[in-house]
């Protein structure tokens, strides 16, 4: 969910960054000088990236991007450019370099770590875009001024573009800025880091903060950075004193708690980055593979670790001991209604952000035990029906991305002899074949005065993982 905080310019955060800079000033003069050095040497390689909605011609979101791979590519957050992934004909990614507006294409994305690699686009010379946008003509000039080999290359490319009218990325000329080096190794805890970005679009900013290790109890690794990261800084680099990228700004929890994607994830993504712009289908396929891998490894890990058996009063249940699962629980003796309820549940933290209305890659399970010794049986089950009728899928999406749920319903007795009304529902993804959202809801129907609801959802799983989890979960409840 943390990505939500970063929905660029979406929320008005207090301008913590100003206060932070002011507070640091008198304390650490030396560090500040370092910040000045870092900023001076690399500010030309960090840019504000805008997502332009073509219909209105105005920006729909903002973020930060920086040059990597010797300046050939730009790296930013996936959530900054997610709109372009799903509706490429509606949006354009744009950076402004020295007063020239350049258009970028998405080369590769990593939805699990929230990263994207972009490349500069060379639109066809005779396209409408080219005539409307004079910068394209200008942009060819610096390329021509560069080394002769590159010049001939670019000319060749321009020619081929003229012939095929296809869009291909062109390596930007070196004077756009130098690419950042990546530092996949994590620094010592407490090391001073410098985060670059353009918070709220108010101007390029360097923020100083400290490395505080990896965020604990997370399935996806993230760096805990104690510094003010604000909306708009998403996708900006965080550097060490040697100006190497340690992480990419991704989210904030407010109060100087920032989160970074480790540089090794970016390094891995750069290895996978293709040389040409992928088609939308290819992009979807790689996203599907990432989500599938993410959920499959979650499910595999969850099933590989033995579940801890515990009792909810008279019924035995199990829960996973994995630390990356966020768990909660509550119980209540209601004196007026003479009922006793216990609830417990766990979930895998934030879902993977795919676009503003669509997320996936999430798992959760939940138990609710209700006991009403003085009630007629009919009332208890009526109560349980009301308690369990509001459940929905944990992840959200729209008709553009998801199909409708289909359900199987049965009165099921498990190997432990517990009888339950089990509903198991699945919906498929439109863009990602072989991915499903699984919804499981079971309520025991064998005791007169006691009942247990057990429920889980898996978002973005393949059939094998879904079936493995179902096979495991359906057997858990056992009356003592």
């Amino acid at each position, binding site marked *: 969910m943390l990505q939500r905080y970063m929905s660029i310019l979406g929320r008005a955060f207090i301008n913590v960054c100003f206060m932070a800079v002011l507070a640091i000033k008198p304390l650490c003069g030396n560090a500040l000088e370092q910040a000045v050095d870092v900023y001076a040497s690399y500010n030309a390689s960090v840019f504000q990236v805008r997502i332009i909605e073509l219909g209105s011609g105005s920006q729909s979101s903002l973020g930060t991007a920086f040059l990597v791979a010797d300046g050939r590519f730009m790296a930013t957050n996936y959530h900054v450019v997610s709109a372009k992934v799903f509706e490429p004909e509606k949006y354009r990614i744009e950076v402004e370099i020295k007063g020239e507006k350049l258009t970028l294409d998405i080369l590769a994305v990593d939805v699990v770590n929230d990263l994207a690699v972009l490349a500069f686009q060379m639109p066809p010379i005779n396209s409408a875009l080219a005539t409307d946008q004079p910068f394209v003509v200008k942009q060819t000039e610096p390329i021509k001024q560069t080394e002769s080999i590159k010049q001939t290359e670019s000319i060749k490319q321009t020619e081929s573009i003229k012939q095929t009218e296809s869009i291909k990325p062109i390596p930007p000329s070196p004077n756009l800025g130098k690419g950042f080096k990546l530092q996949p190794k994590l620094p010592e805890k407490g090391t001073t880091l410098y985060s670059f970005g353009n918070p709220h679009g108010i101007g390029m900013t360097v923020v100083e903060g400290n490395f505080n290790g990896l965020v604990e109890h997370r399935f996806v690794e993230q760096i805990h950075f104690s510094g003010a990261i604000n909306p708009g800084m998403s996708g900006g680099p965080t550097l060490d004193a040697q100006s190497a990228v340690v992480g990419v700004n991704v989210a904030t929890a407010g109060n100087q708690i920032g989160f970074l994607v480790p540089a090794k994830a970016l390094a891995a993504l750069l290895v996978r980055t293709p040389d040409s712009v992928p088609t939308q289908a290819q992009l979807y396929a790689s996203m599907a593979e990432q989500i599938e891998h993410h959920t499959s490894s979650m499910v595999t890990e969850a099933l590989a670790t033995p579940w801890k058996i515990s009792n909810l009063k008279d019924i035995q249940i199990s829960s996973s001991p994995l630390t990356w699962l966020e768990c909660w629980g509550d119980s209540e003796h209601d004196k*007026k*209604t*003479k009922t006793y309820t216990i609830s417990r549940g766990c979930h895998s933290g934030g879902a993977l952000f795919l676009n503003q209305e669509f997320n996936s890659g999430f798992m959760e399970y939940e138990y609710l035990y209700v006991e009403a010794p*003085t*009630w*007629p*049986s*009919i*009332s*208890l*089950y*009526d109560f*349980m*029906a009301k308690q*369990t*009728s509001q*459940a*929905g*899928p944990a992840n*959200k*999406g*729209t*008709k553009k991305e*998801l*199909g*409708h*749920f*289909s*359900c*199987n*319903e*049965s*009165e*099921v*007795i*498990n*190997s432990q002899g517990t*009888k339950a*009304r*089990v*509903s*198991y*529902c*699945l*919906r*498929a*993804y*439109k863009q990602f*074949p072989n991915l*499903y959202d699984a*919804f499981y809801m079971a309520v025991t*129907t064998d*005791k*007169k005065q006691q009942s247990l609801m057990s429920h889980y959802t898996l978002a973005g799983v393949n*059939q094998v993982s879904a*079936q493995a989890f*179902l*096979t495991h979960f*359906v*057997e858990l409840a056992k009356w003592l």
Partner: protein
Amino acid sequence: MAIVVEFINRAGHALAFQRVEANRLLIGRGFNQTVILEDDYVDPSHAEIVLDEQTGDLTCVDLASANGLILEPAIGKKRDIVGAAKFMSGDILVVGRTRLKIFRDNHVVPPARKFSLGYQFAHKYSVWPVFVVLLIALFLLDILVSYLQMPVAESLKLYALQSGYAVLLVFFSGAFWGLIGRTLRGDGRLITHLLMAVTLLLIAQLVGLVLPWLTYHLAWQALSEVLNRLAVGLLGGLFVFLSLRAATKMRRVQTVSVAALIPLGLIITLLINSFGQQDNVNHVPYLKALIAPSVNVRIVIPSSVFVGDTHDLFQKATKNVDSSD
């Protein structure tokens, strides 16, 4: 022999009878006629009806009327009469806008119908005690339903108070429809409407009790939601229809159909709503009803079978995506 003229309305109900002790009679607006009609579309002397003493044949004669004479036989198609025509006892003659059923006086009439049990009951005993019993039943059932929903003894007083609303509703609707009947026909009976209201509310409560059981055993949430709405709509519609019928005796068919539009519209919007909800991809159509183990007769399957059955569900879910494109 004599001829009997029955004045009927367009629904076929008798409005009045006139027995003429003669073998021939004249129909028209004029005061010298045997059967005088108050109808601007009828000539002063419009038609003549002749009964043959020997054969018993009935003949009608159009006396060169402006709007003619139409015969609607009990068997066969209706036709215009040109000049004269024979017809059967019991056929309908349309004179102007007035409808007359013409009989010979020896026309065979079926014997009296037996009183229905309900009628006998209602007349043997006074209906008021029946109504009171039903009202008490409704009151108690309402309390029971509230109690079953949240069985807290301390709240019984509150539930009893809430059941008072149902009782109030019965009296309100009785008064409402009774007033309509009195205004329209001058003979609205309060007790008829009170009985109707109390009976239908009782049925509604009982249906409400049975529906979860039905839903659970049908194991089809979408259908049960529709059933629920249908039950509400149908009972509401039935209530309005019966009340209207009792209040108006259906003499004003147009009014009735306009009134029927309301429950009908209600049912249609409810159906549209329930289908519209299923269009949302975040809506999970799983079975939501639950019933007590003692009345649960669903077939139980082992979990391994259930898991095995879900393989088809993946194909079904994939098909859902393909079909919606």
